[in-house]
């Protein structure tokens, strides 16, 4: 098995660290790697689409899961699909759609693996109706430290199963998941688009009508100030029926072959994305959106994964990379959301379109991010010197409101606020310790947030 030294970062391209990267070709090889991973620990990595340091392990071993067999097995009657941990959601969609099935949850990109989607317990535009990935997983196969291969279901081992969902890879390497897929008639979405004049207007429309739509998400403009603060565009949709499609598309209603899209240049000057350029983009994008448009037929790619149309867009943030901040505050804490939006637009930072969404009920996973409430996600250039203070203030605001920050997006939070945001951390730690008593599963995120097996963060270094 080839093992190479590499500097790794997440999607945000910040804080690179060096690790030995192994690319196993079989579950057996994963087990071999986990039998004796070395003193600095080991973590699995998929496509590296977490924004921060979740899939890197400084000085240790990183298991690149994309070389695992691209195993997919769909039961066409029930829609139960078993897929390898390294299979991408893109590959899964291409395989499922011709048979009239779709993934139960898709994040804003298809460039994630099944293992990563479970480990981050990803959510999509349907969270308020369907929940996150964990709701739809029927069983998981893990390789544990020491090399044992174990299959768990919510009934056979609820503690390990739910600690793995949203567990950021710290309970084992996910090599297979069985997921309940959803039936669709077409590979198209019937979408409504609506422009809102400010944040209150947006919250009002979403709260009143979200329940009627399976998919719902809003993009809000954090560069707009004054009365326009929080203005945005709300997009809702549902899977289109065959009879709704234009005549030409009806011949092959389940066709799904998204192109490779454009490729962003691999290099951009520092500060290309600044307050001016981002503000102008947001303005143009807001103006371009229709005030109200109903029943537009869109392809699945255009509706769910618009950013996948420009590969490598993260490079546009230049050599210093980008930071994403995504938080949720419970319903009833709308004041905290308003305050966060006011601070972000008031700070004059260059925030591209931020994503606002209502979450439905969470699942039993102790470290799962979603909870009933409002979530807001935004990208900022990491080089901005004001971000440290801005985010620290937002952490306090969010934790104080009973909310939390999404670990798959996080690249900067200190360990001290984590327990307040994730009150079930001790329960998760207990399950993690049972699966990994020697604390061998370690990532840079785990070190930063003191999520290592024995609790204090000191023992990240064993060598």
């Amino acid at each position, binding site marked *: 098995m080839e093992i190479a*030294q590499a*500097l790794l970062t997440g999607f*945000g391209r*910040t*804080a*690179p*660290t*060096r*690790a030995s990267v192994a690319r196993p070709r079989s579950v057996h090889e994963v087990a071999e790697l986990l039998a004796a991973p070395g003193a*600095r620990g080991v973590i699995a990595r998929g496509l590296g689409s977490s924004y*921060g*340091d979740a899939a890197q*392990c*400084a*000085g*240790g071993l990183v298991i690149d899961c994309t070389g695992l067999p691209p195993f997919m097995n769909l039961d066409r009657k029930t829609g139960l699909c078993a897929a390898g941990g390294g299979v991408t959601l893109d590959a899964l969609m291409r395989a499922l759609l011709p048979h009239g099935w779709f993934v139960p949850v898709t994040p804003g990109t298809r460039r994630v693996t099944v293992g990563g989607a479970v480990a981050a317990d990803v959510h999509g535009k349907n969270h308020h109706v369907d929940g996150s990935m964990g709701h739809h997983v029927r069983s998981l196969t893990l390789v544990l430290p020491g090399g044992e291969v174990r299959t768990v279901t919510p009934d056979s081992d609820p503690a390990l199963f739910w600690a793995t969902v949203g567990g950021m890879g710290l309970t084992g390497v996910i090599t297979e998941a069985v997921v309940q897929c959803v039936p669709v008639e077409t590979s198209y979405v019937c979408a409504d688009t609506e422009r809102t004049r400010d944040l209150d207007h947006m919250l009002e429309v979403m709260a009143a009508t979200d329940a009627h739509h399976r998919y719902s998400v809003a993009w809000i403009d954090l560069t707009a100030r004054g009365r326009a603060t929080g203005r945005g565009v709300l997009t809702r949709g549902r899977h289109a029926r065959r009879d709704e499609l234009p005549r030409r598309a009806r011949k092959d209603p389940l066709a799904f072959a998204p192109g490779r899209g454009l490729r962003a240049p691999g290099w951009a000057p520092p500060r290309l994305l600044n307050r001016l350029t981002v503000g102008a983009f947001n303005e143009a994008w807001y103006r371009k959106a229709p005030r109200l448009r109903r029943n537009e037929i869109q392809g699945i790619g255009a509706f769910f994964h618009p950013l996948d149309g420009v590969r490598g867009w993260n490079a546009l943030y230049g050599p*210093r*990379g980008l*930071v994403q901040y995504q938080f949720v505050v419970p319903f009833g804490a709308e004041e905290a959301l308003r305050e966060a939006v006011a601070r972000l637009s008031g700070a004059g930072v260059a925030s591209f379109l931020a994503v606002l969404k209502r979450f439905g009920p969470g699942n039993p996973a102790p470290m799962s991010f979603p909870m009933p409430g409002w979530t807001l996600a935004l990208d900022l250039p*990491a*080089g901005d*010197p004001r*971000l*440290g203070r801005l*985010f620290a203030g937002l952490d306090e605001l969010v934790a104080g409101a009973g909310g939390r920050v999404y670990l798959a997006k996080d*690249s*900067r*939070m*200190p*360990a*001290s606020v984590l327990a307040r945001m994730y009150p079930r951390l001790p329960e998760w730690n207990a399950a993690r310790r049972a699966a990994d008593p020697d604390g061998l599963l370690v990532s*840079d995120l785990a*070190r*930063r947030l003191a999520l290592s097996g024995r609790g204090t*963060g*000191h*023992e*990240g*270094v064993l*060598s």
Partner: protein
Amino acid sequence: MKNALGTVATVLLLGGRSEIGLAITARLVRDGARRVVLAQRDTDTARADTARADTARADTARADTAQGETAQADTAQGDAAGVHTARADVTQAVAALKEAGADEVHTIPFDAADPGGHAAVFRAARERLGDVDVVVAAFGVLGDQAAIERDPRAAARAATVNFTGHVSTGLHAAGLLRAQGHGTLVVLSSVAGVRVRRSNFAYGAAKAGLDAFAHGLADALAGSGARVMVVRPGFVRTRMTEGQPPAPFATTPEQVAGAVAEGLRLDRLTVWVPAPLKVLFAGLRTIPRPLWRRLPR
């Protein structure tokens, strides 16, 4: 682990009494660092701490009781060496760092002039900190040029601290950070080494050597995840420079600390403090030697 915004969690300061080093450490703590080890010369405090590997609160208490002897011992050694070092009060330093937000501040013994003991210093730091995110190598002695020219042995001792000591700690730090796969070694160089002046050429020569060594080490570490940052301050107003007339572009330990924090955030290799010195020295380097040697300072 340095986060996406350049904030670190742990700091090892070599030269725990250096005002510049302490200012840098305090700044990193205010920005989010939570655990600190101060490695400094010859204190009973530090020895006791190593023996017992205790919490910082206990350190503070012991530092209080040991302070008298410590100061005495230091003075004696300083006199013997014919140099005087900048010293900050240990107790005050520990208290100030905790005030700034540090959860743990440990002190351990460290003698720059004893490379044989350096492995133990890094081992002790690692035991207390876990991963060492930043090593600040701030130790050094300025010395009195006239005295040094009269006393070659004292000159050699100062050079041992200012250059040889850094070669040893630099290589130890590089080994540690390389194994970690991340971390930054911050080396306090000086503009005195950029073009060595008549008035302090012994000190300047050591800094020139250190500066070159640190840049070479940075090249050696490329791709390892570990980094080196070389800081070239101009005249810094500290106890070490007390009594000397300030040079143009004089700066303060706090300004140096700010530049280091920004350098960490932006992954800089060479940091001039204040920044205009970079341009100034590009000019100074071209001054013909007969004229250069006659410059008053």
